[in-house]
């Protein structure tokens, strides 16, 4: 019975991760500008790959494999915001503009040459 529970939970994690990746890909295509696309890519995309890594660790049923999968998951969770923030800061500082539907730019004129 426990094997069924673990198998069902692993299958749920795999399907949820794949759907998160699909939602991130749809968001990358549908959102209007770079700064909103970044929401889809760095949140939903990271959760998608992280859920699938945890599924691998659960499916193996081995403590060494599971701890490596958890380590990889935390590594992605830690590095995704750093890279997304660096990219957004660089793009805003250089002068890539926000979409006209955005209502507020709190960094306007504060970093680098104002566009």
């Amino acid at each position: 019975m426990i094997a069924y529970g673990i198998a069902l939970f692993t299958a749920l994690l795999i399907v949820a991760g794949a759907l998160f990746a699909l939602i991130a890909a749809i968001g990358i295509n549908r959102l209007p500008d770079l700064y909103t696309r970044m929401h889809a890519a760095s949140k939903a995309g990271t959760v998608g790959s992280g859920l699938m890594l945890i599924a691998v660790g659960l499916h193996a049923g081995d403590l060494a494999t599971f701890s490596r999968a958890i380590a990889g998951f935390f590594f992605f969770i830690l590095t995704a915001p750093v890279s997304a923030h660096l990219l957004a800061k660089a793009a805003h500082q250089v002068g890539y503009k926000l979409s006209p539907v955005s209502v507020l730019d709190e960094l306007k004129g504060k970093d680098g040459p104002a566009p």
Partner: protein
Amino acid sequence: MIAPETIIQAACNFALVVLGIAFFLTVYRVVKGPTLPDRVLSLDMLVGIAIGFIAVIAIRTGYTLYIDIAISLGLVGFLATVAFARFILARGLVGERPLEDGAVLRTEKHKVKGGKKAKAAAAAAGGKGKSGSPAGAGGGRRK
């Protein structure tokens, strides 16, 4: 009753199909993406989808060594994104001039020094294109 392995195999097949769709949607954004940061962001997303593929294949084949490959790929993707961000910071807006509606007017390098008049003309073209289709504004050329 269904065996546990059958459930896992069915979930893996479904996940492979969904990940393939997501992969091609992201590749479309890499090809189309109007500016360089869009392409860098989509490449970062492609690394995440590839890690998902590696995880599913690790479950299907049973080789847990694939997890180490996934961790290494995540490290390389993070470093590549950081390096591209530094490159965007150092490069500036060479060759790209984003308009208000997000479309990009491509400019030649020797035509960038058009002065304020050309800039105002580009802004007017951008405002006019907003009522029409965004693709029309993106296709306009600067004089």
